[in-house]
């Protein structure tokens, strides 16, 4: 008798195949919008609005050209009089009776997003780690109430606090500044960071710090040399969650930033208006916008996976 054929724990080959097929099907369905965005970013404007939609098309980087530039319409005679185009972007622009007038705002907005998202993530994780350590290791009076208070800052919908914050920021001169956005996202994320990290730090036995303190280190040194290295998994997972929030945040950014500190999310939809409905440029902006979070998540995916299942995997 074959034991493997009737194993209770090991699923049969057929059920594994069915499970695999379901997972692949689900992945395909959820990936279609993503694929469509990326595909659109490589279409020409006529291809992007063609009906029936074009699945097979000749790729073009016109969308990316349009994303990074602003263009003005010119007469055919004027374009004829120009010296020959030196690159692809010049050429395609001229074909549409336009010339490149200068760089668009996309790059500075994208840099704003990077600065604000990574800056606020750094602050939130730093403050969160120290706070979580404090709550985990010291007898804090009313610790449970304080922790609930910290969490409660996240309970209100952004729209409920948007107007007070708007007024407050205007008075403080923080409207449309990178510092203001970093402070805001830090404040929102720090509650998540404290709660997540407290869970991780609670699981690191106190004996490690006690051993280090007996070995001649101060508490802060013990924290840095013994606790932090063991909390890296939790810190990485927390950082990803914070970064994703700050990177994708739209409501506050749309309300509080309009010029110099504007981030990519409120900027990207405005591309539509510049010179007709330029879907490839919008898609190109979205595609580039996806990249940093994708890279960061892939770099830290091991920690993220362990982080999500924390408690289950760690002894």
């Amino acid at each position, binding site marked *: 008798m074959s034991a493997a054929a009737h194993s209770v724990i090991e699923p049969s080959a057929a059920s594994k195949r069915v499970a695999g097929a379901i997972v692949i099907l689900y992945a395909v369905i959820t990936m279609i919008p993503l694929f469509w965005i990326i595909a659109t970013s490589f279409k020409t404007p006529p291809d992007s609005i063609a009906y029936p939609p074009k699945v097979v098309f000749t790729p073009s980087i016109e969308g990316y050209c349009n994303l990074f530039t602003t263009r003005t319409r010119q007469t055919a005679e004027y374009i004829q009089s120009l010296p020959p185009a030196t690159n692809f972007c010049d050429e395609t622009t001229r074909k549409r009776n336009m010339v490149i007038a200068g760089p668009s705002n996309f790059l500075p907005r994208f840099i704003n997003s990077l600065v604000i998202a990574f800056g606020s993530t750094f602050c939130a994780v730093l403050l969160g780690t120290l706070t979580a350590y404090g709550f985990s290791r010291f007898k804090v009076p009313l610790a449970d109430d304080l922790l609930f208070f910290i969490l409660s800052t996240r309970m209100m919908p952004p729209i409920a606090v948007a107007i007070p914050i708007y007024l407050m920021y205007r008075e403080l001169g923080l409207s449309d500044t990178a510092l203001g956005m970093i402070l805001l996202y830090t404040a929102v994320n720090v509650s998540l960071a404290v709660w997540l990290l407290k869970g991780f730090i609670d699981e690191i036995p106190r004996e490690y710090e*006690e051993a280090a303190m007996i070995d001649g280190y101060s508490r802060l040194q013990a924290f840095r040399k013994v606790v932090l290295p063991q909390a890296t998994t939790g810190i990485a997972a927390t950082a990803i969650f914070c970064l994703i929030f700050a990177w994708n945040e739209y409501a506050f950014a749309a309300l509080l930033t309009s010029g110099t500190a504007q981030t990519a999310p409120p900027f990207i939809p405005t591309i539509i208006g510049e010179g007709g409905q330029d879907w490839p440029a919008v898609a190109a902006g979205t595609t580039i916008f996806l990249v940093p979070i994708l890279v960061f998540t892939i770099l830290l995916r091991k920690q993220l996976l362990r982080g999500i299942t924390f408690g289950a995997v760690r002894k």
Partner: protein
Amino acid sequence: MAEIRVEQLRKEFGSFTAVQNSNFVVEDGEFFVMLGPSGCGKTTTLRMIAGLELPTSGRILLGGEDVSQRRARERDIAFVFQLFALYPHMNVRRNIGFPLLAQGMATAEIRTQVEEVARLLRIDHLLDKPVSGLAGGDRQRVALGRAIVRRPKCFLMDEPLGTLDAEFRDLMVHELRELHNRIHATTVYVTHDQHEAMAMADKIAVMNHGVIEQFGTPQEIYDRPATMFVADFIGSPPMNFLRFGAHLRKGDRKVGVRGAEIVIPELREDAGEADYALGIRPEHIRFDDGSTLRGAVYGAEYLGTTQIVAVETAEGMLKARVPADQTVKVGEQVGLALNGARLSLFDRASGRALRTALHDEALRRHAHG
């Protein structure tokens, strides 16, 4: 190395008193064991000596210096934790060298010191391994290495063998004692395991509910338990108790337990009318058909050289340790003879042992020795 002196030490956690007025002295180079059931305050006492907890009141002196309110890192002690607390992100070499690094010692110097300690503990072949893959005994040795590399004033160990399996534990008991004989470090060792305590200790303090019930050598604690708790806690099987009520006077050499006259070591104090317990170690019971103390054999536990025979008597179950070759049948009626010179007497209300010739004899022997 240094002497440890604990005076009137007390620790309260809120309304709970973990340690009540402990007093003891661990002499320089002594191996001292605190023994007791879980929650008896032994670990709290140890943590106070280490500086991981601050006492509510009382003093701790290390080598004559009052360190009661000092931080752990200012006390120059080493601590071996129950789960070893080896830093998981460092290899064996860095773990052992970690305390030296704190002192700002030069890298080359740390290297030689770590290697010397590793050779002493026979773990020099493991120095560059990560600690996560080590076997229990090797983890134990690394933890010891980290403790001794600094040559501290004393070693504190919190049930360091608790997680090892039985076979390995015996080996480590032997190794620890051997190490102590070689380096003569003042050691305070906490355990709930009486075998470890008996095998290693120069002195033992038996603790219960935050109180030191008895402080003495392993022999004193086994032969002349100061309280019923100690008598019951030490020995396997523990001491038997025969309960009786009587009026006892100084000079009594016999007690009557349900009509049976039992010879005891001469009583050296007036105890009056009260409930008493006669304490009998299993090895001080032998079978004697002529005895008036009788009972039926309930069962036997064979141990190789000896066997433990449980006998159901009118006064309760008694366990006797008799030679393994003696045949016993379950249900058989037997007479039990007791070795009168070695019995203990306890006042049942307080649990305290009464003073008998047994104590004076020991004192005399001690004085002559």
